[in-house]
């Protein structure tokens, strides 16, 4: 059994699977059930200053793809709609009952030092393990100068983080919005303000769909809709990229990261940890399937780590980061070709038509005795992988390396590159 315990910016938990700040973490009842199911920590649904906000009815939109429900998900919900005192009581109780689990409190208040000091003072005696500054939400609160309105301005991130760090010793995670051109500016600002770590990504600004009868965006509230925050499996690649950017930048490479964005299973989590995350946060998958999914997350990660010989998360954390490079350094001599396994081919023809219509016309149909088979024309195959992805049979199409494996040349020295550097 591997040791799954994690330490995110000084916040410790028995496993790296935390619930992100969202509806599943908005009261004692849910969080207790989550801990009983095995979750390593929670980030409490964002607290604000009373009076509580009010929410609309019809709050979520979803992207279903090819019969798969909730590939993407969005919401126009705001921060907690419960009175501050109720939340504080719940947080105090849960931490007392579950001392080994991480309880982090997410916060969002107007951009004044007084308000931040007020809320920090309030949560200090709950016994919570840390705070997360919500600079991420792209809807509803941002129009009031909070959430992503802060997260999109590095100077504000730095300023507010500093205010918080000046009035508390609690570990402080800064939650970042992906709705920026370069996430590194935001991460740098969080670090400069004294933040102990970053949490990302918050939701992506989105309109998930348009109701073609009402001619209004969804979710539709009395004939109107508004942009909302997009999350779920569909955003994982965006999150993974942003986490990677922070993990590999010189300025932020040692900044602890709590990764968020479409994480649905142990494999997703392992990918984020391999890209430098110290822990992960999950929301949409729980909103879809409930707390029980953590069982496979813990079990699956454990089994995989045992198989690979990793004893702790630190054994593999960040080890994929050095393999992320710039395009110009990729080896142009590396050459792969598609190989079709005749014994498992079901003759659907998707490899042919995808290559024929959309790629390099490198797969021909051979018709023999009323049957057909598909053959790769090596001369035309550029090794793009398209046929392998279009093929519905696992491992029927694989890519075989055909170059010598000893040569290396990248774009920086290529003769077609007008900016090439001359080799000596």
């Amino acid at each position, binding site marked *: 059994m591997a040791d799954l315990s994690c330490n995110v910016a000084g916040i410790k938990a028995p496993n790296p699977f935390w619930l992100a700040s969202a509806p599943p973490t908005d009261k004692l009842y849910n969080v207790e059930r989550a801990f009983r199911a095995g979750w390593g920590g929670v980030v409490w649904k964002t607290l604000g200053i009373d009076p509580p906000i009010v929410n609309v009815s019809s709050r979520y939109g979803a992207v279903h793809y090819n*019969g798969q429900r909730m590939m993407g998900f969005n919401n126009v919900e705001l921060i907690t709609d419960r009175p501050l005192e109720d939340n504080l009581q719940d947080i105090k109780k849960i931490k007392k009952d579950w001392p080994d689990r991480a309880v982090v409190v997410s916060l969002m208040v107007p951009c004044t030092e007084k308000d931040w000091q007020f809320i920090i003072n309030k949560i200090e005696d709950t016994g919570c393990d840390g705070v997360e500054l919500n600079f991420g939400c792209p809807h509803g609160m941002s129009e009031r100068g909070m959430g992503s309105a802060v997260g999109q301005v590095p100077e504000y991130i730095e300023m507010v983080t500093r205010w918080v760090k000046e009035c508390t010793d609690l570990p402080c995670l800064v939650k970042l919005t992906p709705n920026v051109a370069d996430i590194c500016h935001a991460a740098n600002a969080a670090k400069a303000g004294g933040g102990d770590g970053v949490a990302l990504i918050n939701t992506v600004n989105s309109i998930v769909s348009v109701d073609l009868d009402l001619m209004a965006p969804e979710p539709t509230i009395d004939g109107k809709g508004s942009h909302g925050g997009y999350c779920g499996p569909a955003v994982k690649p965006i999150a993974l990229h942003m986490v990677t950017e922070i993990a590999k930048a010189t300025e932020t490479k040692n900044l602890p990261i709590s990764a968020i964005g479409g994480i649905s299973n142990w494999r997703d989590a392992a990918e984020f940890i391999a890209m430098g995350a110290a822990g992960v946060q999950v929301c949409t998958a729980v909103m879809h399937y409930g707390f029980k999914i953590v069982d496979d997350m813990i079990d699956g990660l454990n089994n995989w780590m045992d198989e690979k010989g990793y004893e702790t998360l630190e054994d593999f954390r960040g080890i994929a980061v050095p393999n992320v490079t710039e395009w110009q350094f990729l080896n142009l001599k590396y050459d792969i070709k598609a190989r079709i396994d005749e014994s498992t081919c079901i*003759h*659907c*023809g998707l490899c042919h038509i995808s290559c024929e219509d959309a790629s390099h016309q490198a797969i021909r149909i051979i018709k023999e005795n009323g049957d057909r088979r598909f053959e790769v024309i090596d001369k035309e195959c550029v090794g793009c992988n398209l046929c392998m992805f279009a093929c519905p049979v696992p491992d029927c199409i694989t890519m075989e390396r055909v170059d010598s494996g000893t040569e290396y040349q990248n774009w920086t020295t290529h003769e077609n590159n007008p900016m090439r550097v001359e080799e000596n």
Partner: protein
Amino acid sequence: MTTIDVQAGRLSQEQLSENFSDSHPPLNSGNAIVEANRCYFCFDAPCIDACPTAIDIPNFIRKISTGNLKGSARDIFSQNIMGGMCARVCPTETLCEGACVRETQDHQPVRIGELQRYATDSYLETSETFFERAESSGKKIAVVGGGPAGLSCAHRLAVLGHHAVVFEAREKLSGLNEYGIAAYKTVNDFAQREVDFILKIGGIEIRTNQRLGQDVKLEDLRQEFDAVFLSVGLGDVNSLGLESEEIAGVYDAVDTILELRQSVNLAELSVGRRVIVIGGGSTAIDIAVQSKKLGAEDVTLAYRRGPEQMNATWKEQEFAQTNGVRVKHWVAPKSLRSENGHVTGIEFECMELNPEGKLRGTGEFRHMEADVVFKAIGQLLEDSVFSGSEMPAIEGGKINVNLEFETSLPGVWAGGDCVGSGEDLTVQSVEDGKQAALSIHRRLK
């Protein structure tokens, strides 16, 4: 003295209506979308080749997945005007679904038949039709027989601007769809609703109770019309070739199925306690299962060869078995036993294949008791349809046609079960009728 036990009302009305409800209930919209998304949208898909009417199956399925049900139905009906019935009665396991690459992959083909039903049902509910008649050609074509081949031919002729007159021997149109298919395959009067849909195009004149050779003569039709299409089906049945086959309790399955389909109260139909069905095709399966569903205690389907040689598909055989029918292979009837002029049982000889693969008796015999025996050993072309007229050339008991569906008689085309174009399937008949109409159109231009 054996007690003959044949009686009506073995089951309650509730039980009967449950037994004769839709054997394969339709997909709902959620299931349909999940199933539609299982289709890989193959290039040059093998299912299309396997469909006698060459419906563009991946395309109609994709349209279901995007919610374009109207477009989906159009893809189906433009190739097969009886796409709704075919979705219910086609042996898809040997046609489209048998060719589905997912069958090759994991024996879980896309449920094409059920998806086709989903798309066609949704369109038929709209009471619209996609089809419009071309400008009138002034040509009149006699279509003899209002079953699938005849209606398909008449519809295509109407689309092309011709005037079709359908001569139907019986009271209602739709042929075997109305009179010869098990009730649970086509509930809620679907055959007649489909006829209404087909006729909606206009330009098709219907004359029922017009039996060829009796009420109308081929000779006269050839005189009166620009072309004649024969789709008279197979009106006669094979006999077992046993002594005293005419005794009470021995029936032709097709007659009983007809009676059952036209019955308004199933509780009034007599059914034997012990039923033996002789045959190995769809009709044998239909009468065996329906007997069981009417309350027969023991139903045995006796076939002289093995399961692979049966005309009924593996799925039909399985359906019969799960409905409580015992399927007994490798037995051939040798003699009927009777008391007081009523059948009481059959003496069978056990059969086997000799080393050359020929069927032969083993010399072992089995006796099975029965209150009712059904013969379901195939149908034949009725000679009387040509009485008083010149006959077209016949080959292998069926009307001989060329690739254009032309008979040996000038101006006379034929299709459906009465020709040997392929298997005797509704879908094949629809294709025959469609192709014959196109051929007639080319010839009349």
